[in-house]
């Protein structure tokens, strides 16, 4: 379950030089501003475009190698590709769209596997319909199903959410989460929306001006202050993986535990032990030097300042290490000076339960860095 890509490509006056490896199933986001070369990169991997130079290997099988002249055509690479505009075949029913790749696959899915994919994507009631009668979200789900039913060894998703409004997005996100958790293949998601990436990705490859700038687990990459200009200047956030500890049924709350502390949040519909991915916006984290008394905020996390960096305008961004986890806080310089914050200083992060995001939010999309 690996993808190794080392590709160089030039078109017009744009140069793309990317190198990354994905060594586990799960979802890897190619994340960067529009025009940074993300979609070109997956077109090169899929075989729809031919790189000038490089090497691409899927599960140990080279599919492109400029040194030996190997260039497997796209149709033999068995890479599922979901396009931004779905690209369902308008003259075929949903059923026949789903079977298009399956019928041509050397390893067609069994009826049970097909049924499972249809059920997982919630498209059972659409099978007889024509693509023209489907909504945007339904089209994307059918396109996902079509790609999955060819039993690909790698799945590429090119901004599948970008063309959808918030409501349609909210409709498809749970399906993508389930796919990420169930699929036993690597999934590469191209996105410029921080919120989607924070919610979906296990790993991130940060792309800027045709280059892979950084790569690693989502918690680590999003908490790197040096990458903020590329990842989340406007709305930095921390991603923390926690587990359900127990529920306060009367209060409508759930207590979560993570490597670094505990958090009360609005009730999570999951059994104790279940993993929950949390997103906490840096601007929603308050810092205190001693436990504030008589305050409404529910959660206090103990940690120390690991790094302070200049943010936009009067703000600075602070990276806190809390046990094994990292929290970002965005406060004013004035407050930082007042508290005499410096690297190593012990602080308490104060977080309101309502600020902990555990479902799709509406954070603004990443805007390209100025200049």
């Amino acid at each position, binding site marked *: 379950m690996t993808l190794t890509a080392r590709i160089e490509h030039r078109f017009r006056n744009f140069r793309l030089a990317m190198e990354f490896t994905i060594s586990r199933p799960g979802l890897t986001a190619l994340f960067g501003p529009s025009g940074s070369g993300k979609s070109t990169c997956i077109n090169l991997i899929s075989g729809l475009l031919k790189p000038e130079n490089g090497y691409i290997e899927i599960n140990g099988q080279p599919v492109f190698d400029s040194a030996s002249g190997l260039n497997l055509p796209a149709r033999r*690479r068995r890479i599922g590709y979901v396009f931004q505009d779905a690209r369902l075949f308008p*003259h075929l029913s949903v059923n026949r769209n789903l079977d298009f790749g399956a019928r041509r696959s050397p390893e067609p899915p069994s009826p049970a596997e097909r049924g499972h994919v249809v059920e997982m994507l919630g498209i059972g009631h659409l099978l007889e319909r024509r693509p023209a009668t489907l909504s945007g979200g339904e089209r994307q789900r059918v396109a996902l199903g*079509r790609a999955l039913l060819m039993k690909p060894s790698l799945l590429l998703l090119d901004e599948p959410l970008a063309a959808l409004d918030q409501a349609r997005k909210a409709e498809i996100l749970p399906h993508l989460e389930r796919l990420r958790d169930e699929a036993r293949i690597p999934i590469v998601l191209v996105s410029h929306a921080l919120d989607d990436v924070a919610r979906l990705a296990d790993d991130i490859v940060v792309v800027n001006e045709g280059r892979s700038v950084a790569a690693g687990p989502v918690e680590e990459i999003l908490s790197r202050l040096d990458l903020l200009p590329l990842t989340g200047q406007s709305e930095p956030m921390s991603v923390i993986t926690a587990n359900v500890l127990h529920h306060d049924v009367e209060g409508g709350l759930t207590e979560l535990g993570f490597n670094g502390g505990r958090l009360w949040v609005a009730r999570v519909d999951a059994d104790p032990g279940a993993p929950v991915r949390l997103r906490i916006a840096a601007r929603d984290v308050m810092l205190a030097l001693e436990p504030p008394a008589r305050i409404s905020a529910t959660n206090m996390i103990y940690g120390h300042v690991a790094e302070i960096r200049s943010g936009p305008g009067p703000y600075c961004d602070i990276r806190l290490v809390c046990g094994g986890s990292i929290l970002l806080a965005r406060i004013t310089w004035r407050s930082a000076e007042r508290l005499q914050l410096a690297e190593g200083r012990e602080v308490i992060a104060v977080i309101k339960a309502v600020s902990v995001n555990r479902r799709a939010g509406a954070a603004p999309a990443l805007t390209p860095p100025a200049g």
Partner: protein
Amino acid sequence: MWNAFTAAEIEALVLSLRVAVVAVGAALPPAVAVAFLLARGRFPGRALIDSLVHLPLVLPPVVMGYLLLISFGTRAPLGAWLLENFGIRFAFSWAGAALAAAIITFPFQVRAIRLSIEAIDPGLSQAAETLGAGPLDRFVNITLPLALPGILAGAITAFAASLGEFGAIITFVSNIPGETRTLPLAIYTAIQTPGGETAAARLAALSIALAVTGLVLAEVAAQRVRRMAGR
């Protein structure tokens, strides 16, 4: 009602239909191929092929008939070779009339099919490619069905134009009753014959009825095909 027409008139009608059907049917496959090349191909000489295809549209039909005569006449090299090796004779036969109609109406087919291929999102073919479909597979299962409305429109226009072709046919294969005298030629002959006015009127009425029926059928078929193509 067929009693109103003479045997020769019915013969002209049947011959016209046969010429038109054969002309459209024979020209369709090459028209699809040329249209696909012009719509999607990027090769040197594309502009030349494009103008060559459109030549019959701008040349006077009589000139087309003349060019056919000097290439496919029994004493012309190409015509003699075809006759000798395949026993195919175009000169002064209904097959020659069909050939003339096919060439004259070829541009109508190519234009309509090309437009409909150009209207297909090339991304669909890419999607099919990632799903394991080779070039021929994509052409047959994606491009062709999606181009069907254009193919139908081209075939109908060509069929109507074939029914009405006069200049090229009379120049190339002459006006032989039962062999090359199609409806327009029969009308022309009737008008040239003293006392043939009623015959000419009957044949003209037949032509009009044929055209209107064709139009209605074409509209019905076009609607069906459009629905099939999901548009």
